[in-house]
């Protein structure tokens, strides 16, 4: 049996964090941490060493894209961005594994995780 994916999620809306956490649990993943801004996300990743990050873009203190850039330099943790804004420039997308436009459904989320974690499901 495969080890469940350890995921950190970041979104400044608690309802969305909670929804993603429950949904990822249903998919057999383990949410090992939740952050409400980019800075906390980086700290969480340093502490938990997750397999994957799912993050919003616009958050206080530091955006999800900025956090993804920092993470890309420090580690190889793939980052999936889920945003209510349109896809950022290609330059910014170089640091992320996938981009999903809100509202994203379970099918799209599953496909993105599969792509980012090389056939996790």
């Amino acid at each position, binding site marked *: 049996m495969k080890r469940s994916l350890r995921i950190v999620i970041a979104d400044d*809306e608690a*309802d*969305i964090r909670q*929804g*993603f956490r*429950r*949904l990822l649990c*249903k998919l057999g993943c383990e949410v090992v941490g939740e952050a409400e801004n980019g800075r906390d996300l980086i700290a969480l990743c340093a502490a938990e060493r997750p397999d994957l990050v799912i993050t919003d873009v*616009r958050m206080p203190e530091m955006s999800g894209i900025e956090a993804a850039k920092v993470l890309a330099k420090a580690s190889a943790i793939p980052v999936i961005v*889920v945003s*209510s*804004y349109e896809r950022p420039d290609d330059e910014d997308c170089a640091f992320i594994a996938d981009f999903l*436009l*809100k*509202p*994203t*459904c*379970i099918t799209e989320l599953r496909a993105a995780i599969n792509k980012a974690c090389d056939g996790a499901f």
Partner: protein
Amino acid sequence: MMNERDLLESDLRGQTRVLKRLAQGASLDEVLHTLVEVAEESRPDMIGSVMLMEAESGTLRLAASRRLPDFYRTSVDRRIPGPRCGSCGTAAFTGKRVVVEDIATDPLWHGFRDIPEQASLRACWSEPIIASTGEVLGTFAMYYSVPRSPCASELEFVSSIASLAALAIERVRYQSEVERERAVLKTIVNGIPDALLMTGLDRNITHFSRGACRMFQYDADEVLGKSTSILYADRSDFERMAEERFHIAADEKFEATEVQWRRKSGATFVGEMVGKVIRDERDHPLGFLALIRDITDRKRAEACLAESRDKLVQAERLAAMGKMVSAIAHESRNALQRIQVGIDVLEYDIEPDSEAREDLNRIRRAKSDLQHMHDELRSFAGPIQLDSSTANLAEVWRQAWTNLHVLHQGRDVQLIEAIDDVDLVCELDVFRIEQVFRNLFENSLAACADPVRITVACSNRNDGEQRMLCVSVRDNGPGLPEELRSRVFEAFYTTKAKGTGLGMAIAERFITAHRGTIEISDHPDGAEFLMTLPQ
């Protein structure tokens, strides 16, 4: 020496000669010379001369004389009339005949005697030439080389010659004035770019200006004598104008009427016309006059201006709506995400086929509708940044058709492609053009009863140096109702019970963003949309 009767006859013949010259249209100079000539012929011992008043300088100018010596002519020319200014100068000043029997002694010639003396002139009778208005036009003078006084017949002669001269001068001046006015009028008539037409009371053309020839493309000879009805594009306008303007009791109207006109080639144009009744001095109607101005360019400019204004208003509306949509986009997507994730989680917890699962499905559909509406608003009002790539258009519309599977599932529906060897490769934003086809297909599926046949036909065309792909999407439905045809691309206008009415407005916006065009065809059966896309 002629007797009285011969002299009278000679005078009459002379006067007739003068009148003939006048009738022949001779110049004033020629007529006055003839006048002096006939006077001198009937009285060979007399030297005649005519002087004319020059209004600008107020001087007398020598106008005609055959036998006065040059030095004398020079000396009398440009003399200012006065109360004691020789015979002619005094006659012109007083307006009365002056008879100087002996220049050498007469006080009127005091100070001027040496020149006539030098010319051997001793007597000079001068008759003022007076116009019908009473104005002194000049003088007629009879000189003799010996002192002498006139007899009654000579006085009558000088008087009749002066009358004849007055007649000639007035006639020639009137003629000149008429000719000047005609020249001015001709310049105006031929100089204006508008068409000027005159007709008789029967509305048959009597004058067709150069402007009219240019405007209507007829030579004047082709239309003179013909009814103006040949110039009207619509017979009813010709009849309407008879009621409104071209009848003898018509009131004077200065406002212009717009009329559709027809050129010789058959082409029509909009012209603005003013027209009125031509009347003589006694107010009797003689015919009609019409001035027509081609306002095609003005109409075109007005249409462009209106279109620009509409576009500006539309752009402002779009910008305002874009701001609004952008402002709510983030929050509404987050809200939709909360709903979505809630649905996805509950789907694991709620039993299939339960009432709760049906409730959940209703929530899902409501969320989808909300999202669709939100996406449409964004497509219509949001900024368009095309994400272009090289694509085969057939693949794009096939994908759109496949995505509508739910709509045509279970129905007798067929998508027919008529593309033969057409080159379908274009640079386009696949996502947006797919949405154009999706909107067109959705409309056809909604409007047509089974069996539904939707045909996509393509061809290539060259527009100058630009190669275009032309695409027709046609269905076998009832076609577009007349009231919808002109408004089909208007935002928020729909004949469907549901929907935002943005589908075709979005399609037009996307196609325009690709520098293409989309329009409804006049196909009699079903609805047909024609698109062009640059290749």
